[in-house]
C-alpha cells in the first residue's frame, strides 16, 4: 500500500560490454533512464540518430506491410481479440526469426511494392474507363474519328448544343459564307446536353462550313482516336481486362505472403527494440573506453540489477538515495485486491513525490459505493461471473486491462451483497414471475430493507457513508501533515475542522429537521447537547482565529478565517452529493421493475412466457449496461471530487522503464 521508494543507480562499465549490458537492462525492464546532465571532460555523447532512424524505418516498413496484409488477407479475429494480449514467443524462436530478418524485410518490401503496383494499375484502369466514357456518344460512327474525309470531301466531327435538329444545322450552314447544298449532316447521337454531328462537305467549303457552325456553338471533340470508336472501345476494354487480371495476380501474391504475418510482427518488434536501444545509447555519456548509465530504480529491485550486471561484467555500480530536488517517477505497489483500483488512481494522477498513496483506502470505498449504486444481486452476479471468466480465459491480457476487469469483478461481488441486503434480483422479477405465471405471491425479503419503501432511511445512510468517506479523507490529510512534522497546520486545518464538524453534527441530530427526515426523534442527554455546542463554538472560533495565520494583518486574518468557516457550505454540498448512492440505486431497481412489468403485460401462458422472456432479456441487458456505466462514472466522481478534494494532489510522473517496448509479441526469457 505504498509508493515504492526509488533510488538512483549509476553504472560505469567498459565500452566492450556496452551492448550486452544495455540489452540486459532492457530485458529486465525495471530501470528508468535519466542521465546525469553534467558535461565532464572526456565524456561525449554518441550520435546514433541515423542508426535509430534506419531501424525505425524498418519497423514502419514491416508495419505498413502488415497493414496491407490486413487489407487483402484479413486475419480472423474474435470479438475479444483485444483481451488476448501480446503473443508469447520463445527466445530461441525469436532468435531464429531475427536471423533471417533480411529475407523477411525483403518480403515486406515486396508487399509494399505490390501494393504500389496495384495502385498504379488501378489508376491506369480508371484512366481507360474515362476514355471509354468519352467514346460512348460516338459509338455509332463507323469511320475512324480522325478521318479527314475522302479525296474531294472533308469530314467535320463535333458537338452542338443539346436539342439541335438536323434542319437547324442545315439552316445554320446556309447562313455562312459557303451557302452550298453540297453538305451531308448526320446526327450520330444526341442527349440532353449535346448533339453529336458528323458533317461531310466539299474540301473547298470546309472552312466556311465550320465557321458557320461554330457561330451556333459547334465544337470539335476534346479527344479523337485513330480508330473506329466501337473498335477502340473494345480494345480499351480488353486492356482494362488485362489490368484487372494483373491486379488479381498481385493480390494473390500478397495473399500468398500472409503466412509471413507472424514473422513480420516479430521483425517489426525487433527493430522497435533496437531503435529504443539506440535512442538510449545516444543519451549515454561515453569516454574512450568506458560509458556511464544512470537512472531510477525501485529500491527493492536495485539488488537484482547489481547482481545481474555487477557479477558478469567489469563495472562500478553506485546506488544513491535521491537528492532533495529530484522528481523521481512514481511506482505503486499494492496487494492483489487494492491494486485493481490503481488504474482509477492513474486516471486522476499518480501521487507526487512524498505523497501518500490512497489506493488501499480508496479500493474499499470504491467497491462499497459501486455495489450500492448498482445494488442488484442478479446484475452483480452477471458482472462478477463474466469478469471472472474473462480473467481465466485470457491470462495474457495487458496489465492495465487485467486490473480494470479485476476491479469490475470485485464491484460485481459487492453488488451481489447489496442486492441481497436490498432484495434486488432483476428488480422484482421473483414477485412478478410468481404472480403472472404461477399465481402465487412470493417475494424474497430483503436482508436489511427495501429502499423504495423507505427512501428517507437510505438517504440518511447514504449521507452517513459519505461523511465517513470525507472524514477519512480529512484524516489522511492530517496524517500527511504529521508525517511532514507540520504540527500547527495539522491542528488548525484538520483537528479544528473535526471539532467544528462533529459539534455541528451532534447539534443537528436531536433537532426537529433531522427528526422529520429520519422520522425518529433522537434525544441526547443535556450533557451531550452542551458538549455539542461547546465543540462547535471552539471549532468555529479556532478556525476564525487560525485559518488566516499566514497573514500578518489582523483584520485580513480574521477575514480569511471567516471565509474558511464559510467552507462549511462546501462540506454540506459534498455530503449531499452522496445522495446519488440512493438515487442511482433506486434507478436500477425501478427500471428493472418497469421491465418486469412490461413483460408481464402479455399475461400468463405460453405466448406470455415467450414475450416475457424476450422483453426480460433485452430490457435487463439495457438496464444493466446503462446502470453499470452510471455506477462507474459516479463512483469515480465521488472518489475524484469529494474524496480527493479533501487531501490529494496527484501530479506524479508515471514510471517508464527502459524495456523491450514491443507491440505484438512478448519474448519469453530463458530462466
Amino acid at each position: 500500500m505504498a509508493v515504492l521508494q526509488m533510488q538512483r543507480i549509476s553504472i560505469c562499465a567498459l565500452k566492450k560490454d556496452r551492448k550486452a549490458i544495455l540489452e540486459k537492462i532492457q530485458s529486465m525492464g525495471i530501470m528508468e533512464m535519466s542521465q546525469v546532465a553534467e558535461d565532464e571532460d572526456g565524456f561525449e555523447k554518441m550520435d546514433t540518430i541515423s542508426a535509430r532512424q534506419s531501424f525505425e524505418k524498418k519497423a514502419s516498413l514491416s508495419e505498413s506491410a502488415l497493414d496491407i496484409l490486413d487489407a487483402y488477407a484479413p486475419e480472423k479475429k474474435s470479438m475479444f481479440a483485444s483481451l488476448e494480449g501480446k503473443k508469447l514467443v520463445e527466445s530461441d524462436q525469436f532468435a531464429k526469426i531475427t536471423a533471417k530478418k533480411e529475407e523477411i524485410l525483403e518480403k515486406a518490401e515486396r508487399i509494399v511494392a505490390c501494393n504500389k503496383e496495384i495502385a498504379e494499375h488501378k489508376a491506369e484502369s480508371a484512366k481507360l474507363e474515362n476514355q471509354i466514357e468519352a467514346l460512348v456518344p460516338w459509338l455509332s460512327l463507323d469511320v475512324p474519328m480522325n478521318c479527314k474525309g475522302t479525296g474531294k470531301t472533308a469530314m467535320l466531327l463535333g458537338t452542338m448544343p443539346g436539342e439541335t435538329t438536323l434542319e437547324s444545322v442545315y439552316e445554320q450552314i446556309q447562313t455562312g459564307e459557303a451557302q452550298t447544298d453540297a453538305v451531308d449532316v448526320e446526327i450520330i447521337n444526341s442527349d440532353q446536353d449535346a448533339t453529336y454531328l458528323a458533317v461531310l462537305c466539299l474540301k473547298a467549303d470546309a472552312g466556311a462550313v465550320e465557321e458557320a457552325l461554330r457561330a451556333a456553338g459547334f465544337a470539335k471533340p476534346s479527344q479523337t482516336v485513330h480508330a473506329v470508336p466501337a473498335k477502340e472501345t473494345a480494345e480499351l476494354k480488353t486492356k482494362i481486362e488485362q489490368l484487372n487480371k494483373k491486379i488479381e495476380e498481385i493480390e494473390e501474391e500478397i495473399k500468398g505472403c500472409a503466412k509471413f504475418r507472424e514473422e513480420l510482427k516479430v521483425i517489426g518488434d525487433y527493430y522497435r527494440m533496437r531503435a529504443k536501444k539506440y535512442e538510449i545509447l545516444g543519451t549515454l555519456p561515453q569516454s574512450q573506453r568506458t560509458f556511464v548509465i544512470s537512472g531510477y530504480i525501485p529500491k527493492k529491485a536495485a539488488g537484482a540489477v547489481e547482481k545481474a550486471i555487477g557479477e558478469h561484467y567489469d563495472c562500478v555500480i553506485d546506488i544513491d538515495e535521491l537528492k532533495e530536488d529530484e522528481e523521481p517517477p512514481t511506482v505503486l505497489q499494492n496487494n492483489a485486491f487494492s491494486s485493481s483500483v490503481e488504474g482509477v488512481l492513474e486516471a486522476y494522477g499518480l501521487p507526487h513525490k512524498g505523497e501518500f498513496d490512497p489506493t488501499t483506502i480508496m479500493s474499499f470505498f470504491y467497491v462499497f459505493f459501486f455495489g450500492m449504486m448498482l445494488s442488484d444481486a442478479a446484475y452483480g452476479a452477471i458482472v462478477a461471473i463474466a469478469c471472472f471468466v474473462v480473467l481465466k480465459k485470457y491470462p495474457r491480457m495487458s496489465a492495465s486491462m487485467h486490473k480494470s476487469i479485476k476491479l469490475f469483478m470485485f464491484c460485481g461481488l459487492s453488488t451481489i451483497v447489496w442486492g441481497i441486503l436490498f432484495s434486488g434480483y432483476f428488480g422484482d422479477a421473483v414477485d412478478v414471475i410468481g404472480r403472472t405465471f404461477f399465481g402465487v405471491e412470493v417475494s424474497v425479503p430483503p436482508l436489511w430493507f427495501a429502499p423504495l419503501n423507505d427512501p428517507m432511511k437510505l438517504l440518511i445512510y447514504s449521507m452517513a457513508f459519505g461523511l465517513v468517506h470525507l472524514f477519512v479523507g480529512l484524516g489522511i490529510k492530517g496524517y500527511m501533515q504529521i508525517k511532514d512534522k507540520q504540527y500547527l497546520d495539522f491542528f488548525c486545518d484538520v483537528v479544528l475542522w473535526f471539532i467544528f464538524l462533529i459539534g455541528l453534527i451532534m447539534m443537528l441530530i436531536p433537532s426537529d429537521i433531522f427528526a422529520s427526515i429520519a422520522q425518529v426523534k433522537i434525544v441526547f442527554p443535556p450533557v451531550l447537547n452542551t458538549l455539542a455546542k461547546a465543540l462547535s463554538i471552539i471549532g468555529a472560533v479556532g478556525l476564525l482565529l487560525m485559518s488566516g495565520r499566514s497573514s500578518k494583518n489582523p483584520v485580513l486574518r480574521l477575514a480569511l478565517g471567516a471565509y474558511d468557516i464559510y467552507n462549511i457550505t462546501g462540506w454540506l454540498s459534498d455530503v449531499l452529493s452522496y445522495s446519488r448512492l440512493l438515487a442511482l440505486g433506486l434507478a436500477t431497481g425501478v427500471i428493472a421493475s418497469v421491465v418486469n412489468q412490461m413483460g408481464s403485460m402479455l399475461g400468463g401462458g405460453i405466448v406470455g412466457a415467450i414475450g416475457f422472456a424476450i422483453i426480460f432479456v433485452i430490457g435487463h441487458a439495457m438496464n444493466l449496461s446503462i446502470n453499470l456505466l452510471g455506477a462507474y462514472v459516479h463512483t469515480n466522481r465521488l472518489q475524484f471530487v469529494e474524496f480527493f478534494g479533501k487531501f490529494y494532489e496527484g501530479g506524479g510522473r508515471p514510471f517508464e522503464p527502459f524495456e523491450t517496448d514491443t507491440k505484438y509479441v512478448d519474448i519469453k526469457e530463458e530462466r
Partner: protein
Amino acid sequence: MSIWDNLGLVYALLGAAAAVFLAGAGSALGVGIAGQAASGVVTEDPSKFAKVLVMQLLPGTQGIYGLLVGFITLSKIGLLGGGAAELTPQTGLLILAACLPVGIVGLISGKSQGQCSAAAIGIIAKKPDQFGKAMLFPAMVETYAILSLLISILAVTAIQV
C-alpha cells in the same frame, strides 16, 4: 359536482407525463449533440468508438430519471395495476408539482451535459489516455439532475394518496 372536482387524476398523470417528456427531451437533445461530436471522431479514428460511445451515453441518464419518476407516479396513482385511485384536485396538483423538478432540471441539464460531453469527446480525440478525466466533466452536470431526481422521488413517495 363540477368538472373541476374530478381532475385530480388528470393533474397527476400530467405530472408523470411532464417528468417523462421534459427529461426525455433534454436527454434526446444532449445525446444528439454528443452524438454529432462522436461521429466526427469516429470518421477520423474508428478505434475510439467504444470510448466516445460511453461519452455520448452520459447525457442519456436524464431521460431514465424522468422515466423513473413517471413510473413511480403511475404506480402511485394506481394506473398500472388497474383501478385508478380517487384523487382530489389538491393531491393531483401536489403530484404534478413533485414531478416538475426532474422534468425541468432534466431538460436543461440534459442539453448542457450534451454540450459538455461533446467537448469531452474532443479530449478523447486528442488525448485518448485522459478518458478518466474527460468523463468527469459531463458527470459534474449530472449531479444536479440526480439532486432533482432525489427530490422528485422523495416528494412523490411522501404524498399520501
